[in-house]
């Protein structure tokens, strides 16, 4: 984590690269060939509507879903072709903050944050205690280690989850909808925390969200996906000035065109020409 402060980030070498990534649930393909690179120290925000495949993309990047085709390179290893042991090794170098926090309810906040350290390192309890304090301090939760997750508010739960994700000093930090379900002030606090991690530790951060304001605030680059395809990838300025209709529609929050007639509605459901509708009448 501290290496970023000593060495300036090399803009050429990507930390994470995707090549033609495809993911399917059963017969249904969710992602149809996604390719992009993330370089060290940058914050990439993945934007997309509900059902666009952005959550599936994130789950695949952290190894919760297996790709059906394509390559995911993290630290010189292809995630799609790793054994379980290699996968676990890669996972120790990434941190993930889940939407609802996903803290373990039967443990205190401190035990939650210390869990990866207890499981994967042979550190003394006193050392773990120090790291734990430090991580909680980083997310602004010092003094809360003996609370249970049920005693925390939504924003504090997310902060605790970030502390847990930071415990192993990950090289890439993933966020799933960091501001979902939070009021605007608390959500701004989480954005501030992400910016702080980026500034202070030069951490590579990948955020999935549909909150535009927060996205423009924290992102270096943005990726818009729709129906499992990349629509646009670029810096925040490039996105703002984009003239691509789908990008404009998303950024300007334009609703899908209303359907008026019965045939239009049918066309929307079947995505076919209405002619197909009349031709079915010939059967029998």
């Amino acid at each position, binding site marked *: 984590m501290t290496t970023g402060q000593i060495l300036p980030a090399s803009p050429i070498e990507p930390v994470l690269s995707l090549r033609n990534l495809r993911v399917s649930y059963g017969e249904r393909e969710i992602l149809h060939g996604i390719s992009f690179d993330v370089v060290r120290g940058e914050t990439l925000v993945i934007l997309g509507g509900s059902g666009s495949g952005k959550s599936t993309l994130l*789950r695949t990047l*952290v190894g*919760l879903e297996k790709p059906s085709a394509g390559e995911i390179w993290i630290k010189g290893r292809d995630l799609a072709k790793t054994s379980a042991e290699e996968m676990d090794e890669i996972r120790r170098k990434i941190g993930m903050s*889940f939407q*609802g926090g*996903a803290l*373990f309810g039967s443990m205190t906040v401190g035990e939650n944050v210390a869990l990866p350290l207890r*499981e994967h390192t042979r550190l003394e309890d006193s050392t773990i205690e120090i790291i734990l304090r430090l991580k909680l301090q980083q997310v602004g939760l010092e003094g809360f280690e003996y609370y249970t997750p049920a005693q925390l508010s939504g924003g504090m739960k997310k902060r605790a989850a970030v502390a847990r994700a930071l415990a192993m000093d990950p090289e890439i930090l993933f966020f799933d909808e960091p501001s979902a379900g939070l009021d605007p002030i608390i959500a701004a606090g989480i954005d501030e925390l992400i910016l702080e991690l980026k500034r202070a530790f030069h951490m590579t951060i990948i955020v999935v969200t549909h909150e535009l304001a927060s996205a423009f605030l924290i992102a270096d680059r943005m990726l818009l996906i729709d129906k499992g395809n990349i629509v646009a990838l670029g810096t925040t300025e490039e996105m703002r000035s984009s003239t691509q209709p789908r990008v404009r529609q998303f950024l300007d929050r334009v609703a899908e065109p209303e359907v008026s007639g019965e045939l239009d509605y049918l066309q929307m459901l079947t995505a076919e020409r209405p002619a197909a509708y009349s031709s079915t009448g010939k059967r029998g």
Partner: protein
Amino acid sequence: MEFVSQLGSSTLDGLSYLGSLASLGARAAYYTLVAPFQGKPLRLRRAVSQAMDTGVRALPILSLITFFIGLILALQAAYELRRFGAISAVATAVAVTMSRELGPLITAIVVIGRSGSAFAAEIGTMKVSEEIDALETMAISPIRFLVAPKFLAMMVMLPCLTIWANVMGILGGSLFGVAQADFTLVRYIQASIDSLLLRDITTGLVKSVMFVITITAVGCLEGLSTGAGAEQVGRSTTQAVVKSIFLVVVVDLFFTVLFFFAGNQ
């Protein structure tokens, strides 16, 4: 034709479910019995608190139920035995039926209701709130972290509970023996002990170990396969109870047949 294809597909579903159970059971057994000796320690504290829940806290209700079952057995046996003037054989009938069959079975059913359902609900809730995913992204095996402590707790507690259930059943029978069949309590207990072979007790314990694997694997598998949403947790819990009871009876039948023919030789 449709019936045959349906029969075929549900048979395949059943077999693949049994396959998943066997795989989960095997992995749980590995993390409980083998991995701790390869430097992957078990969460002993969790196993102990799980054992308290599964075992010690089940004692009051299990005692009451098996006491009544023992009494019922004595009454039912006496109904027939009285006609042959063999009412003193009640002690034997109760002791043998309890320790060979009803002790393990009733214990298993009580534990399914208390713990099998709780396993499914606990793991299912963790699945819904992405805690299982969180474990995986932290490179912590959910089987080792969640299932193995439950497996160990059950492995220790269920046989103990079974023996306790046998004792309580015999005590239940003694209530009838003393009140209606001219036994003293000491003589009734003595008669029960005399009638039991070691084999009667060990067959019951073998069954209860098999029940441990069945109940833990079904409860945890149902929990782990919970879909999205809170109502799915309820569904998993129900499924865990129904499937566990069914499979426990099937396992019971299998071993009873086995011991019957093994005992005849």
